[in-house]
């Protein structure tokens, strides 16, 4: 997802919508300001580890990064999101949990997890398809009118 930050330059140079519009600038400014304020407030240097942070900052930065990618290219955004999900799956599920991995597991829960992941993929695809159909009929999202 960090690919989004260098690609932000493309949005800066883009004049037409959707570029770097005020809502995105607001979210980015809030993230940067939070990062600076956090660095000032934590008294001891080097203690700005994620466990001490405001997770709102991380979430807003993450959402902003995904939006930047989507504005640069829908296809690129989907590839990066899928790759990021795969990396998360590998590092958090496949390669872990380290000390317990060889123990017996709850197979029913594992099946439920696979079903849950499949349901998320199917639901997301259905929402994307529905939005594409509606978008094609309507041509624009009503909220885009403000641009």
């Amino acid at each position, binding site marked *: *997802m960090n690919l989004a930050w260098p690609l932000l330059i493309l949005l800066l140079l883009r004049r037409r919508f959707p570029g770097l519009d*005020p*809502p*995105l600038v607001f979210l980015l400014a*809030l993230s940067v*300001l*939070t*990062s*600076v304020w*956090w660095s000032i407030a934590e*008294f001891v*240097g*080097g*203690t*700005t*580890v*994620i466990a*001490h*942070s*405001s*997770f*709102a*900052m*991380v*979430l*807003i930065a*993450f*959402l902003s990064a*995904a*939006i930047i990618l*989507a*504005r640069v290219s*829908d296809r690129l*955004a989907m590839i990066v*999101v899928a790759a*990021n*999900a795969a990396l*998360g799956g*590998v*590092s*958090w*599920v*496949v*390669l*872990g*949990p*380290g*000390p317990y*991995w060889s*123990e*017996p*597991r709850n197979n029913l*829960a594992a099946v*439920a*997890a696979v079903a849950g*992941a499949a349901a*998320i993929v199917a639901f997301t695809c259905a*929402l*994307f398809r529905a*939005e594409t159909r509606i978008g094609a009929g309507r041509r624009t999202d009503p909220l885009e009118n403000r641009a």
Partner: protein
Amino acid sequence: MALAALFGFLYLSLLLSYVPKYSIDVPAEVYFEFPRAHDQKIPLMFAEAIHDRLPSRVGRDSWGWHFSDRPPLQAGFVLLFSPLWTLLARPIAYQAIATALQTSCLIAGWMLLRTLGFRYRETLLAVVAAGASGFLYYNSVYAWPKLLAATFVLVAVAPLAKAFLDGTRPGPPAAAISAAAAALAMLAHGGAIYSLVPLAILLCLRIARLFSLRAFAIGAATIVALYGPWIAYGRYVDPNTDRMLKEHLTGYDSPEPFGPALLRVYRETTAGDWALERVHNVRKQFRDPDHDRLIIQVARGVHDARLQALTQLESSTGIKAERLRFDLVSLGALLRTDQREICSGRSAC
């Protein structure tokens, strides 16, 4: 909301699949080679202490902490759903509620993005991206209430940011909603203050045009009404020593009250040292050279067996040096530690 529910279901299923029998300690012990602090179960302990009227609901525990050192919102939700305890074991009921509460940040994220006018497609992609990240997964099952606090921060941001961007004044209802959400964020986790202060600073750029006196008064009254009782609880019912504040804002716990402790540490620090520490803090958000070196060492060793002998493995947070090997399992443990403990700038990736 359906997406958030599905992600919550996925997270819980994954967590439960790791062990044949669930216990409340699993989220703290299962993901790393070295068990993490069991902070995720404190809301349940607090709720149980109140529900069962245990003497330990007030006073210091054996580690010197009071329940009033940590905000109570998640414990409150657990108590709200305590009738479930007759149907399910407390740990699993708690885990389900706590994970559901953390995944509510996806709903708040959706609401924020749509309120600010982001396109449906962008919003959907952003929310799915967040839900599919290891960061959200881990912090939803290791359910310390930080994502719950983030939920309310995002709710607080939405109407104010909308008014800020549109150049309009939020009416009293919007001011009350934002103020209530800000107070609830602080009642979920004190770390929310790191986002709420910058939000207030941003809003100050247009404060005269943004707030009427009436809306401001309603917001302030809402915050006092919601957050005041918790302050009073920490002063009069279970008096604490502001240990959390002191550890973060002065560097360590000390017997003196927070105010004098803060003044003392700043008096004892030179401007140069203070500035250097700030730079260190900024750097730490994006890089931890020791941990990065360790990841690179192991990755190189995995890639090329000849490089394994040239490196020296060291311990790191969440890592046991003696367990560390030049293999993918160790590399996975290092990557998880990186997202859990180290750099917020990379946490979501």
